[in-house]
């Protein structure tokens, strides 16, 4: 696996993945995104994750801090580097590759 940023990280698997999912409650894409990410996390990360779901209409300040244009948008806050992915997260393989998650664990 040539996924980690440095040698140390490669050895130590992150203890926890921290995600922020920005959604707009009005849209169906967001509903799918929540479902998909929860399914994904439960399947690949079990309890090793934290997921915060933020409705941009409820918390516009947070949305603007993060320069959100597209929703749904998933941000991996930890481990660094921060990574973003937009869309309804229906493609599991994309997420695994993008966020460098070693799914065999």
């Amino acid at each position, binding site marked *: 696996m040539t996924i980690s940023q440095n040698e140390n990280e490669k050895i130590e698997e992150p203890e926890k993945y921290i995600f922020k999912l*920005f959604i*707009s409650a009005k849209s169906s894409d967001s509903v*799918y995104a929540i479902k998909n990410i929860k399914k994904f996390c439960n399947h690949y990360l079990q309890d090793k994750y934290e997921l915060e779901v933020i409705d941009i209409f409820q918390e516009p300040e947070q949305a603007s801090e993060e320069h959100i244009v597209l929703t749904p948008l998933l941000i991996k806050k930890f481990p660094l580097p921060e990574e973003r992915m937009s869309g309804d997260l229906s493609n599991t393989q994309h997420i695994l590759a993008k966020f460098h998650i070693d799914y065999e664990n």
Partner: protein
Amino acid sequence: MENTINQNDKINNSNNCKPTLSKTLTGIVGLDDITFGGIPKNRTTLLVGAIGSGKTVISMACIVNGILSYDEPGVFMTFEEKKEELQLNLFTLGYDLETLINEKKLYIENLYIGHEAAQVTGKYNIDGLFVRIEQVIEKVKAKRIVLDSLDTLFSGLDSNILRGEIKRLFNWLKEKEITAIITAEIGQTQLTRMGLEEAIADCVIELNNRVSNQIATRRIRVVKYRGSEHNTNEYPFIINRKGISLYPLIDEEPQQKVSNERISTGVIEMDKMLENKGYYIGSSILLAGAAGTGKTSFATAFAVNTCRENKRCLYCTFEEAPSQLIRDMGAIDFPLNTFLDSGHLKFYFARPILQNFELHIMSIKTKIKEFKPDVIILDPITNIMVESINSDTTATLAQFIDFVKMTGDITVLFTSAMTIEALSINPSYEGIFSMVDTCVMLQEKRIETVHVRRMYIMKSRGINNSKEEKEFIITDKENTISPNNKMVISNNEIVKKDPIISRENKPSVSANLSSIAQNENGKNLVK
């Protein structure tokens, strides 16, 4: 009974609620004219154009004008330039955005995008943008917003999803009751790269920056304006330190003033041909003839006489530099220098290839505003029409004549190196002949072994002009009259026996008229 009343009410209501298209003035001189009152209020206008066509500046001008002139705060959302760069760029154009930002009337938002755009899985929407826009509108209570530009905002995204989303954005902006301008880059085959925005936008304005004959000219065109008439022509515009100026043709100008007063042509025989009074003040005159037919001499006689009547003359020369003109006209005793010193005469001299015709005309307009002349001479107009005389340049000339006529009392004289024969070669010439009020044709004809100059008045609106073809001479001899009733162009300061005074009893107008004294045998007589 109740029913009928209700019905009546309904009818009244429906009458009151007639859908009227309200517009918002952009405050950009000219743009509001070609759109007949500005861009659609509370709706979306699409501004398309290539890189460097002036999209950012025009849209920002609309925001700034909204703040300064119409008390409408505005938001400028840029996805392209950094806030600081944008401010600096516009500062050089005379827009002090800092102050407006501090007064909380302007908000510039720089939205970074792109990272997440490239990493997409599955369906998505642009609700995030909506939330953002809502926030920034709230910050300054904006009535106007610019999104600059659509292409940067959505670069790398799936165009199928975007079409729907852009449509949603336009509708959403409409609901927000905000006047929006969205810029987009012009597409190869379609108007915009996205291909659909123009179908959604209520108003589409196109900008371009074309180079023709090595002269770059920015042009603007209203492609579409839903529910409103608009001018579909292309109009040139300039962006300089004074901001943006458009030079539109104002379709009909009801306030066009008409004068009944007359002004001497500076040549007594010519006055005679024009009911003995000369041109109408505020009219346009064309002196047309091939090279060497005496156009400049006629024009100078008019200029000198105007100055002598204590009026002001703006002499725009595109062929000879003023110093040369002074020397050459000095050879036939026209004292241009004297009037230059006295402030009655001013020159505008510019190389024809310096800029395009419309821009020359704009510079002249500026001069007119500063100097407030009574007479303007453009000598020769054909020289600054370097792009060749076509419908474009003719239209510009028509616009200029319109502009001058609106002032009501400026008489404008063009000279033009055109001949009647040329009409058949280039029909566009016809436009020039027809747009002016008085048209004087100058010719050189060979009679046996001598070339003689002749002139006739082809037309003169509202004047019962002589149809005679007159021979004329140009001489340095003052007080010259030629035999056989020929016309003489020469400098004549003192009127000895002025037929105009005696006939018209208008000493105030004609007291200082130059005239040909009744003297015998001048020199340089032809024939």
